[in-house]
């Protein structure tokens, strides 16, 4: 059976995959979701992303597109008649790309936060707080990073917010104390159907991270 619509190879907990799910939902696009077992990757995933063998991968018109932010830009350009994810002004686009890329650094920092202990964890916590405060300054009093419009940076960052409980529990701190505007922004985003349907309960994310810690020996 051949489908002309997009196919998304993904993993439920992946914040990178969630970005793509949110983007597709914001555009109102139908697609086929294929859940990958990351401990037993499918031949389709290995063939579609031979370089990294990672999710998410978007398969569209017989072509494969990898890397979540690159997929988001592709979706925005192909379905340009739908609501825009990126602004049209070149400078605003550059800013959006910068902050979306910066959210990748928050994610990397978050991984160190739950993988490390002692000094390493403290350093990761300090870095996380610093980065979230920079995001807070960028958000200012806007409803979204995209201004009135929920956009590229919002979609890039929001999946990480369901990891906040995990970061707080592992490193013993409260993100709301450090970056209250980000927490408030996250709550606003969760009111959007695209976000609510793509993100998982923070406690479920925490349980999964605990499983990873045990499995990879990070305890």
């Amino acid at each position, binding site marked *: 059976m051949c489908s002309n619509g997009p196919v998304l190879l993904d993993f439920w907990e992946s914040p990178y995959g969630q970005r793509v799910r949110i983007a597709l939902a914001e555009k109102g696009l139908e697609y086929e979701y294929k859940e990958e077992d990351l401990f037993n990757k499918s031949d389709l995933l290995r063939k579609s992303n031979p370089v990294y063998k990672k999710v998410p991968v978007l398969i569209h018109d017989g072509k494969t597109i990898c890397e979540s932010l690159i997929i988001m*830009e*592709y979706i925005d*350009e192909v379905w340009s008649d739908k609501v825009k994810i990126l602004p049209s002004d070149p400078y605003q686009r550059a800013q959006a790309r*910068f902050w979306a890329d910066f959210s990748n650094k928050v994610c990397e920092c978050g991984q160190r936060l739950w993988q490390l202990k002692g000094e390493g964890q403290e350093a990761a916590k300090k870095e996380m707080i610093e980065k979230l405060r*920079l995001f807070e300054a960028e958000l200012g009093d806007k409803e979204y990073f995209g201004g009135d419009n929920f956009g590229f940076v919002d979609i890039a960052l929001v999946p990480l917010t369901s990891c906040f409980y995990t970061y707080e529990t592992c490193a013993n701190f409260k993100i709301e104390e450090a970056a209250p505007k980000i927490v408030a922004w996250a709550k606003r985003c969760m009111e959007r159907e695209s976000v609510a349907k793509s993100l998982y309960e923070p406690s479920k994310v925490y349980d999964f991270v605990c499983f990873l810690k045990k499995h990879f020996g990070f305890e």
Partner: protein
Amino acid sequence: MAETAKLLGTKGSPYSHRAEVALRLKEANFEFLHEDLAHKSDMLLRYNPIHKKIPVLVHGEKSIVESLIVVEYVDEAFDGYAILPSDPYERAMARFWARYIDEKVIPAFWMSCWTDGEMQKGFIAQAKETLTTLEGQLKGKKFFGGDSIGFVDLAAGMVAFWFGILQEVAGINLLNEEDYPVLCRWADDYCSIEPVKESLLDRKLLVAHFASKKEKIFATKAPVYD
């Protein structure tokens, strides 16, 4: 916008090179402001407070940072030469391979130069794999961008010009014509393009620069591009 742009950078930096070549391809009016990275200017710190790095493009009081973001901005803000393709899938591929160069090709090669023993062997194996993968993307084309240079060629500028210099200083021989004939041919062709030539320092100067910093780089693994 007809206003003259300012590019804060250094001639020794492959990242600054990307931004400079993009501006030259567009025949944009710009002023190159050379940064002393040991004594960063107020202007650099003001326009890139988060990373404090070059290149920084200042265009009408607005600043754009991160070399590949600068290149995309230049492509969109200035008319003329098309740096990225127009087809969405081809654009996605260009972005993917540019990112691959930054995340895999450059780090593996860099660490191959500045480590030793078993660690170096590991990095050399990685570097060989990434260079083979990158070479595969040329697939019978003159440039990564096709008949003319594009986004991925600019991203790979470090491979074309800096890799030969670094390996000479480090005393290794990774990127050579025997092992990577297509990539080496591309490197020569890339460096012969006029806007690229205009942005490159004299090779001997760059060799001398890295040679003088060799011990420091070996110890810290941190790049020193000015």
